[in-house]
């Protein structure tokens, strides 16, 4: 395949609501994500990271500009894009009334994995996520780290070419976070998949990402490898310094970083204990 994994050109997205001024969540964004790359979208609350993710994964309609995933235009071929994608949202998104295995089987069916392969695929991802022993327990009995691993198993069961992770370790304790990072690395090594993630943890971005896009107020502020970005800010700069440099003291109060988003994040953190 010649095309990049993700190609975004002049993408702009405006939220319009009655009684409110239009809000430009993504403003003329252009970037590419290469095959097999782990690409991080960083920025303060309301920077436009989640809106960008939701435009890439077809949850939002593309208004202006274009987004192509493995050469497929998301506006014209959303089904082709979805068939190639695994997605882990920020919230805890498992069905707690099902067992771990049933949760994964559910998504195996939704991705039309043939019946003859389904069982083996489900077993394989559960084993990869070290959930085989607890696979037949109700997901409501899982710890926060296990829930995240189960979500990764759901997202991987279709062997996606692009894995999209929206704040994958929010609310996790350091041990569970290490475990998720380890699994993301393992997945990339085994499947060579492209990973696109958003995070607020600079350490996470530094460890996992080949390249990082810093976003602020819907615009691309900086793009490069973690080392390049750090060098550009100063000789002993950390990624946190890079973040502060590009985000400044800029606290947005737009929809993405608003009350609903904070509440959602806290709810997830709370449920993860």
């Amino acid at each position: 395949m010649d095309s990049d994994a993700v190609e975004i050109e002049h993408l702009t997205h405006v939220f319009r609501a009655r009684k409110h001024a239009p809000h430009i969540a993504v403003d003329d964004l252009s970037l590419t994500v290469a095959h097999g790359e782990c690409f991080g979208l960083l920025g303060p609350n309301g920077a436009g990271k989640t809106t960008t993710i939701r435009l890439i994964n077809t949850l939002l309609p593309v208004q202006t500009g274009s987004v192509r995933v493995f050469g497929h235009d998301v506006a014209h071929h959303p089904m082709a894009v979805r068939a190639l994608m695994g997605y882990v949202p920020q919230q805890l998104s498992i069905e707690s009334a099902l067992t771990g295995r049933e949760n994964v089987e559910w998504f195996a069916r939704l991705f039309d994995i043939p019946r003859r392969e389904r069982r083996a695929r489900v077993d394989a991802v559960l084993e990869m996520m070290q959930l085989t022993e607890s696979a037949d327990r109700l997901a409501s009995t899982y710890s926060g780290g296990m829930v995240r691993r189960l979500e990764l198993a759901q997202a991987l069961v279709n062997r996606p070419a692009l894995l999209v992770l929206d704040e994958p370790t929010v609310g996790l304790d350091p041990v569970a976070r290490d475990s998720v990072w380890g699994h993301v690395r393992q997945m990339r090594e085994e499947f060579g998949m492209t990973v696109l993630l958003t995070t607020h943890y600079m350490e996470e971005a530094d460890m996992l990402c080949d390249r990082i896009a810093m976003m602020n107020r819907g615009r691309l502020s900086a793009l490069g490898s973690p080392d390049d970005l750090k060098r550009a800010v100063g000789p002993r700069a950390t990624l946190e310094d890079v973040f502060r440099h590009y985000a400044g003291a800029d606290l947005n109060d737009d929809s993405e970083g608003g009350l609903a988003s904070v509440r959602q994040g806290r709810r997830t953190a709370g449920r993860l204990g």
Partner: protein
Amino acid sequence: MSVKAAVPPDVWVSRGPLATIRVTFSRIITFCLVELQKLSHDRTELFTRAIQPILWLGIFGTTFSRVRAIPTGDVSYLAFMSPGVIAQSGMFVAIFYGIQIIWERDAGILAKLLVTPTPRVALAAGKAFAAGIRSVAIALVVIAFALIIRVDLTLNPLKWLAACGVVMLGSAFFCCLSLCIAGLVLHRDRLMGIGQAITMPLFFASNALYPIEMMPSWVQVLARVNPMSYEVSMLRGLLLGQPTNYLADLTVLIVAGVVGIAVASYLMGRLSR
């Protein structure tokens, strides 16, 4: 690191209407299976949801059977109202599926479902028939209770099977109605208020408790456009052998279900934004 990125499956690139229909049926089966799995893990809801219809039959029905105030032809009032209470129990289950989808939206489950290669019409249909499965399970509990209190229902298993199909169709419509309201109001609290406001009028403005001919003329108009009346008529025909126009009843239920699924799938996009 290897770069063996998955090849986009061509089957998803250009999908015709036949493929959409096939996927829709596949998703309906998947969502019904998931609902059955949930029910198998926790059967308490079956019984708690059955309490209200059992009280309708056990208290309201037996009392009004003695009063003999409502003309019901050659069947007892208890038998006359039993199909109405079965339909009502299904409607009450289905109408709160809108709350469930808002919960799924808040928990990130809906976003994950919408990022699978599932057309929105298939997602709405899957949800609708999953509600139907739960309604049928509760309807069977109510039918069992009706037989215990010696209501003269048919014992023909084929007619029971057909009655389950009718409950499923009716519940699918009410689930879609609820999904439509969810797509409009977007908040659980508002939907709970609206759900409570519409369930009793839908029940009372139907032939569930008394013949349409007894109602004031303006309520008769409501009852004749209320799909619940057609569901109850079919159930009375199947379970009590009362005369009804099966073709007209079935047509109304199918058309209502199809329109409900179409509108719900259109409005579902609002829930993903």
